[in-house]
């Protein structure tokens, strides 16, 4: 009987826990939102590009501008220009870097971000170590709170069943004493079963409800499979794009130099880093710590300004093991050269990688970030297209191929294609129906363009 009891209690507790887990999936996650939207410029506890965020809500409240802070978040320049806010002016004066508007965040989401930063405690352990190999963790945020939910629910369920078990034993004892008949074979399961059979309508409702719920849930989850938006793996060197591409204004293709030649944009080899870092030994944020790792990798002795050599005269090198951020499945052939070369599609890197100049480590942007950036003046100048599907999904690729136009006069290659299309009236009319030629119309939706 005890066995059956345990079995049943486990089943029930699993059900409950699943429900909890599902709920937490829908709840606003301040931490995630912070990391996705704010962390590139803000640190909760110290000033970075933006001011530290912990206690910020309190400050604005103290200044009597509790409501205005939400306007600030959604559109800083609008609030500043309106002149309504003292706090806005103070921040504006504090740093010349304008904050990226976060209009896509709802008030509840912003609130959850504030809750998160106000409760944030900086981690004790330092990031990175002596080794140049990256950690294997998928992301920095271990879902520790989730684990607690699981443990607590287990304990609760266990206690519940223990109490119920005791109650049952007592009932049995009372029944025995009173000489009443007590069916020893009846278990929780049978009682529950009988109850469910008696209340068949509730049962039906329950079943339908559970089925609907899990169906929707499964569908939603399935859609998230293989979606890497917002994926930012830890890296052996805390390289900052914000510093190099943003502040220093170094062109993307200086480091990712095979982007125009190859399908790979290329993770820069250390010798590219050493073009500058043979001289630059100290950075603004981490001092010498991170740059020393580069020197170690390339075998450079910064004191002697020379490379360490082995007995055969080769440099004592130690390759850096990076964690790849942008992963495509093996059966997808994406060519950077096709997309960024000036004679081909000539697309700006930010179309797919978002405002990298505001990120630190290599990271997959979210479509919202890219769209937000596309809406900025810079984004429009760069001709960025707004898309809807999550980044690095096939839907996203073909959406763009459907929207992106090709200028048939742009190169000798397309001129030849244009000449041929004109030979066939039917095809010509179909393609030029809407006076524009998209990638799709020239075969950009065909499977073997990317899959082989």
């Amino acid at each position, binding site marked *: 009987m005890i066995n059956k009891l345990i079995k049943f209690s486990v089943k029930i507790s699993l059900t409950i826990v699943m429900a909890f887990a599902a709920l937490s999936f829908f709840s606003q996650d301040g931490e995630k939102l912070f990391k996705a939207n704010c962390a590139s410029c803000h640190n909760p506890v110290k000033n970075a590009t933006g001011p530290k965020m912990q206690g910020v809500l309190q400050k604005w409240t103290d200044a009597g501008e509790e409501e205005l802070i939400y306007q600030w978040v959604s559109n800083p320049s609008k609030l500043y220009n309106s002149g309504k806010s003292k706090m806005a002016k103070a921040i504006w004066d504090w740093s010349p870097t304008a904050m990226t508007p976060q209009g896509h965040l709802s008030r509840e989401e912003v609130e959850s971000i504030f809750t998160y930063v106000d409760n944030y405690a900086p981690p004790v352990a330092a990031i990175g170590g002596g080794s140049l190999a990256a950690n294997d963790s998928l992301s920095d945020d271990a879902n520790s709170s989730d684990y607690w939910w699981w443990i607590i629910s287990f304990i609760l369920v266990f206690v519940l069943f223990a109490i119920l078990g005791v109650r049952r034993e007592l009932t049995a004892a009372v029944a025995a004493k009173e000489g009443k008949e007590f069916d020893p074979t009846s278990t929780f399961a049978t009682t529950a079963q009988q109850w469910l059979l008696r209340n068949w309508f509730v049962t039906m409702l329950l079943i339908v409800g559970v089925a609907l719920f899990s169906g929707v849930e499964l569908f939603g989850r399935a859609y998230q499979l293989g979606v890497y938006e917002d994926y930012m793996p830890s890296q052996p060197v805390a390289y900052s794009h914000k510093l190099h591409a943003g502040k220093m204004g170094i062109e993307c293709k200086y480091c990712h130099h095979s982007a125009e030649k*190859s399908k790979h944009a290329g993770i820069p080899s*250390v010798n590219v880093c050493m073009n500058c870092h043979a001289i630059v030994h100290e950075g603004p944020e981490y001092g010498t710590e991170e740059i020393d790792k580069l020197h170690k990798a390339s075998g450079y002795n910064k004191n002697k300004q020379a490379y360490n050599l082995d007995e055969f005269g080769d440099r004592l090198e130690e*390759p850096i093991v990076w964690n790849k951020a942008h992963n495509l499945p093996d059966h997808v052939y994406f060519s950077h050269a096709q997309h960024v070369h000036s004679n081909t599609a000539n697309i700006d890197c930010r179309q797919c990688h978002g405002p990298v100049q505001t990120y630190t480590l290599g990271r997959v942007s979210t479509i919202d970030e890219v769209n937000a950036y596309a809406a900025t003046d810079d984004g429009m100048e760069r001709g960025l297209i707004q898309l809807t599907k999550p980044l690095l999904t096939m839907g996203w690729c073909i959406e763009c191929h459907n929207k992106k136009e090709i200028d048939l006069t742009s190169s000798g290659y397309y*001129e030849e294609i244009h000449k041929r299309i004109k030979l066939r009236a039917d095809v010509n009319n179909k393609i030029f129906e809407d006076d524009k030629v998209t990638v799709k119309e020239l075969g950009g939706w065909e499977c*073997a363009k990317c899959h082989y």
Partner: protein
Amino acid sequence: MSKTKTYWKGYSEKHQTPEFSISSQKEFQDDVPVDEFLGSDGIDDLKTGRRDFLKFMGFSVAAATLASCESPVIKSIPYVNKPEEITPGVSNWYSSAYYDGNDFANVLVKSREGRPIWLKGKRESFTQGGLIPRVSTSILNLYNSSRLNGPSVNKSSDSWSSIDKEILKKLNNLKDKNRRVRIVSNTIISPSTKSVIQDFINKFSPSDDSVSGCNIKHIEYDAQSYYGIRKANENIFGKGFIPSYDFTKAKTIVSINADFICNWLLPSKFSTDFSKARKPENGWMSKHFQFESVLSLTGANSDVRVKIKPSEEILVASSILSSLNNQNSNSSLNEATNEKIQSAVKSLLENKGNSLVVAGSNDPNVQMLVNKINYQLNNYGTTIDVDNEINLFNGNDEEVDSFQKDLLSGKIDGVIFYGVNPVYSMSNGSEISEAISKLDFSVSFSEFMDETASVCQFVCPDHNYLESWCDLNPGSNNYSLQQPLIRPLYNTRQAQESLLVWSGLAERSNSESQAFYDYMRKYWLDNSIGDQSSYPNFADFWNWTVHNGFTASTNESIPSILVFNDYPVQINPQENALDWEYIVYQKELGVGNHAANPWLQELPDAISKIVWDNYITMAPSDCYKLFGIDTSDSKSAWDGIHLGQEEKAFVATLKVNGKEIKLPIYPLPGQTSGTVGVSMGYGRGENNEDIGNAAFQADEYGNHLTNAQGGLVPIGANAFKLCNFKNGSVSYSGYGDVIATNERYSLAGTQTHHTIMGRTSIVKETTYDFWKDNHKSNQEAYNPKVKLHSHEEGGHSEVNATEFSLWDEHPVEHVGHRWGMSIDLSSCNGCGVCITACHSENNVPVVGKDEVRRSRDMHWLRMDRYFSSIEDDNRKEWADSNKVDGDFDYGNLEVPEENPSVVFMPMLCQHCNHAPCETVCPVAATTHSNEGLNQMTYNRCIGTRYCANNCPYKVRRFNWFNYRDYKKFKNFNPNQDQMARMVLNPDVVVRSRGVMEKCSFCVQGIQAAKLEAKKEGRKIVDGDVMSACGDACPNDCITFGDWNDPESKIREVSGSDRAYQALEEVGVKPNIWYQLKVRNIDEELAENVSSDESHSESH
């Protein structure tokens, strides 16, 4: 008398055996292998019920869903210091050269991020783009994980420095004691290597008589000897050389058992040259007579093929010679052979000075006769160039024989083996092995612990050719350079460097030691090798030579004045003591250097289409006699056809001089009655030598078979045992005994797979004379369009089949690109390089013998071999009634199907514009692109196999297993080997289980070429895009390009008079055209051949 040409893929189809009828109805010849998926033969005993199964499945789905939420972190390691010439994701090409003692070819190697992954012949070079499958697949040998990792002494590994010390000690000891040492190598065609060997000899055996030293001699030894040619030339012209043969100029070619397209002397060049003279558009076509015993690839390509016995080679040669001199030859040859000899002589005389006679025999007497014939025909100076010698095969059989005798009698104290494996390739291997193991000093430079290395004291493994520098001098007017494509994968050292270190001329620094490179460069500078004068300095010259891979020689060659000496030829009729004559021939596997190469093992033999096996070839009629099968009723006789695939093959023992080998019998059409043939190159690793997993037989679960002693079982048997030293040279044929056994053996063949259901218009052929008369005026006569009957517009009419279609026109014409291919069947000689090139370019899985037997070979491109024979109706009647018809006795005539003519036809996805596969796919995984490609999208495919069922060409392959990690394929699939996995092409995905795959027209190359054109802002021109098969094809049979470009070559040839499309009547509008085959036979059968063709009986 009407004659009908029938085409058949094998005897079973020819005679419509019951098995054939059943198997031809099946698309996939086996049921779904459910128990193999689960991988256990005890599956029936399991107690897993349906409910349990559902539970497991439910759990698995849940687990898989949960597991897939977390993606693995992928590491990425960029260069620390990126080499300037490497861009990740972009291929680099380097010139190099292949030489292994048996084959030579100039090659261009494709390298990705420092890994050589593909190669093709280099067009502007000595071999002019020539390639054979052995060279094409050699890239995989580099990654064989059985290669030795470091040197060893008595099989225990040691460091190079301590081995060097020990060897030096031994050498000095031998020197002090005045001992005899022999360096036995393959023919060295590298001038620097020769110099290295000489330096080594000088160091330990000084020529100065006052100094004592050991007696070191260098002996060159070729596994397949061509000593007969050198010896004959020595006798006739006073100089033991091999001249170069020019098949491009020869208008009549007579070959007596020389398989020059695939194996003889320098096939990588001859095959290309031969094909150049086989295009009727040249205005002439060579006429090729082949006299041979085993139907070889060369025989299959000949215009007139005559079956002779090996002992008759000399008779044929002498008969040709005496006929040239208008003498009567009183040879014992039969009438049919004599008749063919006369027509050959007639043709030779017509083209006097532009003909060529070659012989494959190693008997100097045969070669002397051939020399005399060529001399008489004034071929010296035209088709035979005596000033440009071929430096290959310098082995002297007499010298090798005396070395053997010395070794066996203990007269030799030390031996160094370089590039040879005499324990395997000498007929008395086991005695040699014993003798070597008794020696005081023995060194092997072998890359593997092979038969010879495992009995040597010291094994100092050499680099693979893709890891080494070497200069090669294959012909006297050419110096080729071999350059390394990759750092040494293992702790090996180039043999030349070892010798240099021992001679004290260099020191080994590290694994990337360049000692020999420096030596070689200095040697070139000091000896002014090559055409250095046209460069400002040596460094420039050197860099360009490395870049080009070769340089011409500027050595002022003094034209040789050869004095013809009518050396007497001995024609000793051999003692005919036994019933059978045997011949040891070479096929795809060569002399056995590549036995562990799964790509080569899985390449179907050009004629028999057997993979992974060795067999005895025998005339079918002999086979029935030997095994006592009643042939009185022809139908029932052919029911017992045992090709080994559907019905297990007979096994017989071949006994020669007390030695015997036991092998299955393959009934080969075209084999001379009374003879048997065995291929050399098999039976490697008889004593468990570790030469690579793929060299051994595996059972149906992929585990190696073991013999009674627990040892591994090699594939096939070693036919070198049957060779013997006779009258001053090694003989590869003789008399023997064939004894039937009761055993049966399964062979895996592909010839009955994917049958084409008796449809016509697949292969078309005509004769040169007929073509010449008609190609301008009446193409219908030899290239008829298939007509269908129409009743439209009130009346019966015949309309071209291509005008009917169920589909709407697919808009590929004149829009964007339309990729098309044309294959010239006339210059295609069926060598199979396209298959191996496709295999390595597209990561096609190797499936092994057992899976091939289940018709699950994965080749994206196959080489269909059709036998054809002209039947006349009277014979049929005669055969039916089994009696003499009137006063004409058909019984005395040669049965045509016993010496059929052969057509080779590369068959691959035809990329139909009206593709039947596309319309039946339920998930739209196979679709049509507007560039005319039939696209296959693996990630959409759910494996219904409807498409394969609906394909009229049977070119779709179903991926049955996870070949890359299922244990069944562990011993031969290269993807399962950590090392061999490096050969994968990163531009093509490795397909997983459950999807269809097929030729993609190398879409990766198309995409790359388009990108290149876009980047340069220009249109695509001919030559930008080439499929792997066409790129590697040594004969330029394959034209590939953009049909929508009016200036393209493909547009031109697709409209040529020889162009047709396979099965055009099914109306699928392929994007592949074939150019029909033209034979140079002058019989008056032309119109019958072209119009009455029919493909056996319809089903």
